[in-house]
């Protein structure tokens, strides 16, 4: 099996050009999965008299994210809470879908879609434009006022800082997930090449590593989904902050 990291099978579409087919199929699969999961979760809310374990668990997570958004943005952040909850759960599921070895089984999809720079840049641009549109819709031309804070001479620095936000947001998520896959790839290379150093079988000793790396990947995937969500909340709170 010849597989190289960072290479994707391509589709050529009429208008948009070349797209990565495995990333797209996996993202669609995760969308369907997420919709089914939340439909099932929502339908379990019909009986308020009896709180089930699933409801208690996910209510805790949703409440926590909602409290976080409202506590950071203020009361007017309440209507943006569903956006942040869906960002968190969707990116979490995209990160964790790479755990299942679909691609290694020969299927045309698999791997984390967030290990593709196209995905993370798209999400960062969605968040960035969404924040700017929200700020302009709520504050009019005053949304640009915070670029010249605390005084006008800092305008170029503030513009650079503002433009760096989507770049760092996308690159942080991309590299964290991509390096997780890269580590697995490196360990597979070491295991499959059968290296002995003297009497010491290095390939056999390296066989324990994927087990530990998957724990690391799970932790990192959760943490980066959370960091992406929380940074979106913080950027929105900065962009729509009321004047003091």
């Amino acid at each position: 099996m010849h597989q190289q990291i960072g290479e994707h099978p391509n589709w050529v579409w009429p208008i948009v050009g070349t797209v990565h087919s495995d990333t797209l199929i996996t993202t669609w699969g995760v969308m369907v999965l997420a919709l089914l999961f939340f439909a099932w979760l929502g339908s379990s809310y019909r009986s308020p008299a009896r709180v089930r374990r699933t409801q208690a668990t996910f209510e805790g997570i949703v409440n926590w994210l909602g409290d976080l958004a409202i506590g950071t943005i203020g009361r007017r952040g309440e209507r943006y809470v569903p956006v942040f909850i869906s960002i968190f759960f969707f990116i979490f599921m995209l990160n964790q879908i790479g755990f299942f070895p679909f691609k290694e089984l020969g299927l045309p999809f698999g791997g984390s879609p967030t290990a593709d720079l196209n995905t993370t840049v798209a999400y960062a641009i969605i968040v960035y434009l969404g924040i700017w549109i929200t700020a302009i819709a709520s504050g009019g031309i005053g949304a640009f006022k915070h670029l010249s804070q605390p005084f006008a001479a800092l305008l170029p620095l503030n513009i650079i800082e503002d433009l760096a936000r989507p770049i760092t947001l996308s690159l942080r998520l991309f590299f964290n997930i991509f390096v997780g896959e890269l580590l697995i790839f490196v360990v597979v290379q070491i295991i499959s090449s059968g290296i002995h150093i003297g009497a010491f079988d290095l390939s056999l000793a390296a066989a324990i590593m994927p087990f530990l790396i998957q724990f690391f990947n799970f932790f990192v995937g959760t943490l980066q989904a959370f960091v992406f969500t929380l940074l979106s909340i913080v950027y929105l709170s900065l962009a729509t902050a009321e004047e003091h």
Partner: protein
Amino acid sequence: MNESLLLSSVVIGFSLIVAAVAFGSAVGDGIVSSKAVEAIARQPEARPNIFTFMFLGVGVLEAFPIIALGLGLYLFFVVSGAPTGIPQVLKSLAGH
């Protein structure tokens, strides 16, 4: 001779990158968590809030060593010939 020099310098460069980012991120993580513990000891009722921002700090901080590890592995792969780079380096280190 030339090839082994290249391989050894790639290994040394990779080790230096990983050592430097491991040192820096360990110090940074230590500072973040020690300050969080201090803050929780001072104000135990603010514990969920402090945990949230501790994980934000750790998440932002951990991105840099991981990016550096990715760049180091890129160096490892590309300079020593992908995709057989790492077994080749290890085999030459093992004396095959």
